[in-house]
């Protein structure tokens, strides 16, 4: 578990080898590609991608025709029970790598000889927390922009480690439900919390890549963010459980703790360890072929300090999404509520005044209509309206209360 650069070099080589191995094992795997092109209109404040505090992917300076993403996914079989998944994506923005990985893992999934089945994942992948990100590449089939909760998951969380799952397959044995439990140990997630604590919540579909690097949202906490760094050589963990009832209802719960050592990181390397933990609960209800209702709640805390554990934040968000599918059309609506506040501070006197510097309080409405054309094409129109109060905006010279709106028309091709 060396520094990221070593790990990055190693993983890049591994990823390249996997991609080069694709032709050799393509007969037992599948390669798929997605291209998403957008026309964007936005009055949002400057986006995080430029080091500012905007909540949306596109701000008023990034309107017009945009690359939503180009992604390449591969799933292959090393044996009948051992599978490899590699997800790569390009967002066409100024991240350090024009094409980068979002997931790369091995998945061991033996055949169930009884009602019980074990599974093991090793590599870099998403924890099973979102009930809306169901498409390959962890995309949402409902809206272009994810909920505030899962936007954050896409920005700052990735399991880089191992996850063991035990499934009870009741349906095949005459029962009405199934359940799963998972436990994971991971490294390289010590910086999780940086974006949430400094910018607050966001709503977009721009996932952070495994070797990406971005400017940190402006302020007193440093100027850059290396995602998926391991500063303290101490593993974090999460445990989760899910229950599925007759294909009608799915419930998920997860407790996460990156167990970051606050002493790791420094101004010199401009990286900080954030001790971040949270709980998440979610439900997805599918009463018929048309209607899907998803709700999720997340609440947690994060701490950072090089010298003393005196800087603490509390954050929570929840959303409710309803989606109606009618043949080739799908209509979705989502309401998000979110807040984040600093609860203790050792730098809030002096140059930053006497009050808490960081906070976020707001809500958002997202409406989307989409139509598919044949098996491969999809056209989606999405409107997003987010209202929030963020004290940090004072430091950028803009009003703390802002209403940001964004309209996107996306043409997507999947093959």
């Amino acid at each position: 578990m060396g520094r990221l650069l070593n790990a990055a070099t190693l993983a890049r080589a591994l990823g390249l080898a996997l991609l080069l191995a694709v032709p050799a094992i393509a007969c037992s795997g599948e390669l798929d590609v997605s291209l998403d092109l957008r026309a964007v209109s936005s009055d949002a404040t400057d986006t995080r991608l430029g080091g500012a505090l905007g909540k949306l992917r596109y701000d008023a300076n990034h309107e017009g025709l945009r690359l939503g993403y180009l992604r390449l996914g591969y799933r292959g079989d090393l044996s009948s029970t051992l599978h490899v998944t590699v997800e790569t994506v390009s967002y066409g923005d100024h991240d350090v790598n024009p094409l980068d990985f979002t997931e790369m893992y091995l998945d061991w999934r033996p055949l169930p000889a009884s009602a019980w089945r074990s599974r093991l994942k090793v590599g870099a992948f998403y924890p099973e927390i979102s009930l809306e990100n169901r498409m390959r590449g962890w995309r949402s089939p409902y809206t272009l922009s994810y909920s505030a909760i899962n936007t954050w998951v896409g920005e700052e969380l990735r399991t880089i480690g191992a996850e063991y799952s035990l499934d009870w397959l009741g349906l095949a044995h005459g029962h009405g439900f199934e359940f799963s439990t998972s436990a994971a140990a991971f490294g390289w997630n010590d910086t999780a919390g940086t974006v949430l604590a400094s910018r607050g919540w966001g709503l977009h579909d721009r996932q952070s890549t495994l070797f990406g690097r971005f400017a940190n949202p402006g302020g007193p906490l440093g100027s850059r963010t290396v995602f998926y760094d391991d500063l303290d050589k101490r593993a974090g963990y999460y445990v989760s459980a899910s229950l599925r009832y007759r294909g009608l209802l799915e419930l998920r719960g997860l407790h996460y703790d990156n167990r970051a050592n606050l002493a790791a990181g420094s101004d010199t390397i401009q990286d900080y360890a954030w001790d971040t933990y949270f709980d998440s609960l979610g439900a997805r209800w599918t009463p018929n072929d048309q209607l899907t209702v998803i709700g999720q709640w997340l609440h947690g805390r994060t701490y950072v300090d090089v010298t003393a554990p005196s800087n603490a934040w509390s954050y929570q968000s929840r959303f409710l999404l309803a989606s109606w599918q009618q043949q080739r059309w799908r209509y979705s609506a989502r309401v998000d509520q979110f807040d984040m506040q600093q609860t203790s501070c050792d730098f809030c006197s002096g140059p930053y005044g006497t009050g808490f510097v960081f906070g976020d309080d707001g809500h958002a409405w997202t409406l989307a209509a989409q139509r598919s054309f044949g098996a491969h094409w999809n056209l989606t129109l999405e409107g997003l309206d987010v209202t929030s109060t963020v004290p940090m905006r004072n430091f950028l010279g803009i009003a703390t209360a802002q209403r940001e709106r964004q309209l996107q028309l996306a043409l997507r091709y999947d093959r």
Partner: protein
Amino acid sequence: MACVTVCTVLAGLRVATAGGGLSVTINGATGAAIEGAVVIAEPLQGAAHPRPGQKLAIMDQHNLRFVPEVLIVQTGTAVDFPNSDQVRHQVYSFSAAKKFELALYAGRAHAPVVFDTAGLVTLGCNIHDNMLGYIWVTDSPWYGRSDAGGHLQLRDLTPGEYTVRIWHALLNESGPELVQRVAVSDNQISAANFRLQRALRAPTHNHGTDKQWADY
């Protein structure tokens, strides 16, 4: 109307010239007709007659479901498992009557599987846990599934004593009410009426999913 009459007469002639008939009716605990129940009539004595033209059957996979959900085949029948979805499936069974596995595949990657032992084979997909399918393998050539009215007519049965069994994918009981002994005579239609004692289990749905998705 004329056609219906002619067909009925022809069917009657067929029964009259080629053995006996068996009329099966299945009702639930509340009296409602049970559709889709498997009915198998096995002669108590003598070997069952092979049914010609049933040597290859198809169990498709479409929209993350086995189609049909329940397939009945005679012993020795080969079953093809084409995958009509865009995602890959890994079909398997651990049932005593047939243990097998078809490694992850799309399209028609595997040769048909021969089912050579009588019994119930429960099918699963290791990637999509709520995909469930069933293959009933029987030595008997006399079988079928009940219609919307809970009825099934079996024809051309060799005269003699039969064990008639019923089964349903959502059955919530396993008692003697699922088996009857019936005598079949030439030129006569015997009856077997079943009444379940407990309600069927609620079905499992496949709502809100799309065959292109890969759930996280």
